[in-house]
């Protein structure tokens, strides 16, 4: 692979997941040299393990974090409130590939939902229309089924249950489309063979990830210097306030410094905010981009919850794509339901050990054991809904505790808003109704503690005083520092975030390339 000198001012990107991998690939294909720092190592298809717990141990970001507040994570997994990946490809190794666009009204929640007390709701500085061309491109890059002439997958058993339940209940908008999983070979990647281990890293590369797609393509250009096992610990700036270098700890534990002309931070919300906060200096005493105090704030992670039902006959939900489709009827904004925003309902299968852990959080003994023994009769549903941003739901640096590298660990505080509770209750009721509609003989509802979708910690805003970055992800206070990931979302929307993250990353990369071309950066 190409080696870029540490003294050569390069575009330095922190994190190789959906956001960082995309920006890196876009820039190198335009002739720009990129240093990509990735805290994790390279783990490829041959190493992926088709065992949920072992894969979790292999891929998941385990560095200590601390959860506080009244959200479930603070009591049930206070040292590990998030589920993200530390490896080349980031959380796109774990992700399920659901690739949905946000709805038009979700770009202006403050206007459409009105003033919701106890929230920091804000409109996005861009509209759906601004993002449409980038959604198009993102769908092409990810190979999203049902777009660009890509066929949908045939319905698997678990999806068939959701579809029938929804129809019987009277719902109309159900789809097994929009998956970033190849239904046939495309873009050098294989077609899905319905293995059912999408979360464990797809061993045949049918599921899109930056590890399977953008990173190898970027390496092939000869302009990418991917440095794995390298944890960025600080972004430095010059006297004028321009980002000038990134300090990182390499795989041998040695501190290194890479001179930078542009820096993009794409560490997945919590780590992104953490790097900005760790980079405090005389000029920026509360961290980079934090002049108005928004770094780390307005953290959102979606309303969630799972429902499993024992069906009258076998389902075998583990066969095939883990999350094969969604029901959209409840994704609308309709205040007659008693809350603002909406949620999706998704068919979901989990392996026995995860299911057992979820049930175990609620109860133990006979009831769980009987339920587990019906594994082949189970169908599963998940809800994913818009949660309210709040100024005090935020990432800070722990005052005392340091991680193995001597860095202050991130603290994630969340107090659940009443709107989130109402939405969750509505979702529980709906999924119960759906299970009943197909004759479930027993239903268990579980709460999901680990946050897989992380947004909002460096939100975009038109006016500098309202956020951290502009609509291109450029930090208001620093001309050449960008935030590339879901941190920039002012609100979560109901949809899974990654297609929007990738669309924004494409838009950002265009803007960086153009500015560099103009000599503007």
């Amino acid at each position, binding site marked *: 692979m190409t080696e870029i000198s540490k003294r050569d001012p390069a575009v330095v990107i922190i994190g190789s997941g959906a956001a960082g991998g995309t920006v890196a690939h876009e820039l190198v294909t335009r002739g720009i040299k990129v240093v990509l720092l990735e805290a994790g190592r390279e783990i490829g298809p041959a190493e992926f393990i088709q065992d949920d717990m072992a894969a979790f141990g292999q891929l998941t970001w*385990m560095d200590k974090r601390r959860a506080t507040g009244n959200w479930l994570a603070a009591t049930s997994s206070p040292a590990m409130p998030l589920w993200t990946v530390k490896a080349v490809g980031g959380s796109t190794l774990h992700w399920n590939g659901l690739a949905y666009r946000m709805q038009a009204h979700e770009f202006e929640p403050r206007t459409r939902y009105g003033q919701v007390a106890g929230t920091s709701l804000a409109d996005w500085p861009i509209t759906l229309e601004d993002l449409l061309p980038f959604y198009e491109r993102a769908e092409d890059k990810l190979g999203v089924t049902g777009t660009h002439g890509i066929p949908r997958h045939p319905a698997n058993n678990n999806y068939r249950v959701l579809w029938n339940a929804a129809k019987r209940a009277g719902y109309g908008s159900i789809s097994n489309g929009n998956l970033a999983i190849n239904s046939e070979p495309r873009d050098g990647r294989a077609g899905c063979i319905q293995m059912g281990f999408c979360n464990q890293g797809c061993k045949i590369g049918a599921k899109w990830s930056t590890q399977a797609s953008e990173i190898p393509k970027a390496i092939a250009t000869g302009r990418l210097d991917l440095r794995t096992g*390298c944890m960025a610990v600080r972004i430095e700036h010059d006297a004028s306030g321009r980002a000038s270098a990134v300090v990182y700890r390499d795989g041998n534990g040695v501190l290194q410094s890479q001179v930078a002309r542009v820096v993009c931070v794409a560490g997945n919300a919590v780590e992104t905010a953490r790097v900005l906060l760790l980079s405090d200096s005389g000029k920026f005493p509360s961290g980079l981009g934090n002049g108005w105090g928004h770094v780390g704030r307005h953290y959102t992670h979606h309303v969630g919850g799972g429902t499993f039902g024992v069906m009258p006959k076998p389902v075998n939900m583990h066969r095939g794509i883990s999350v094969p489709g969604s029901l959209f009827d409840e994704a609308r904004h309709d205040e007659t339901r008693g809350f603002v925003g909406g949620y999706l309902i998704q068919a979901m299968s989990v392996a026995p050990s995860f299911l057992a852990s979820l049930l175990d959080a609620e109860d133990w003994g006979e009831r769980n054991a009987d339920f587990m023994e019906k594994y082949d009769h189970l169908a599963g549903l998940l809800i994913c809904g818009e949660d309210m941003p709040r100024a005090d739901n935020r990432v800070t640096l722990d005052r005392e505790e340091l991680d193995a590298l001597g860095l202050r660990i991130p603290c994630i505080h969340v107090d659940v808003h009443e709107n989130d509770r109402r939405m969750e209750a509505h979702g529980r009721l709906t999924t119960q109704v759906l299970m009943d509609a197909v004759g479930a003989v027993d239903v268990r509802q579980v709460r999901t503690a680990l946050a897989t979708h992380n947004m909002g910690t460096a939100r975009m805003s038109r006016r500098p005083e309202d956020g951290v970055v502009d609509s291109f992800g450029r930090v208001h206070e620093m001309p050449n520092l960008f935030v590339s990931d879901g941190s920039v979302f002012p609100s979560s929307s109901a949809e899974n975030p990654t297609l929007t993250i990738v669309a924004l990353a494409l838009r950002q990369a265009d803007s960086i390339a153009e500015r560099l071309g103009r000599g503007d950066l």
Partner: protein
Amino acid sequence: MTRHSDSLVLSRRNLLMAGGSALAASGIPGVVVAAGAAAADAGEIVTITRVVRDMFPHRIVPILKFRDFAARLVGTADSSTAAMLKQGCAELDRRAGGVWRTLDSKRRRGILEGMGGTPFFSAVRTGGLLALYTDLDVTRLFGYEGPSLEKGGYLLRGFNDLDWLPVPT
């Protein structure tokens, strides 16, 4: 390219917030089982076997599966965990006013519930859960089928064989 070796054992322990030995006993691939484990106390293994069977009362799972877990838990415990396990078993008997495992299931459950939240209870529960439900011999009994790559996925093996509901249109 530089490489970085994660300390998986430590991190997994951290994550699951169980005693290290509970995890070792779970038999998850990659979890190190200490060599030269302390001499196992047969009485303790019998008691813990009963505890884990009560926690996960599967009549279709061979009792030996539970016994093997209990033996691994006791056999791989470091000295402080061993003391904790011993004390937990003694506490069960103390609360039973006799031999806890000889009580009827309702009274056993009552006493176990009272121990909820103790390190003993958590170690057996977390370790037992992982040991049982990551064991394909066990989960196959419930209809799970495990890794599928070698068999070519489920594309030709029933991913859409559900026949009691109409096909989506």
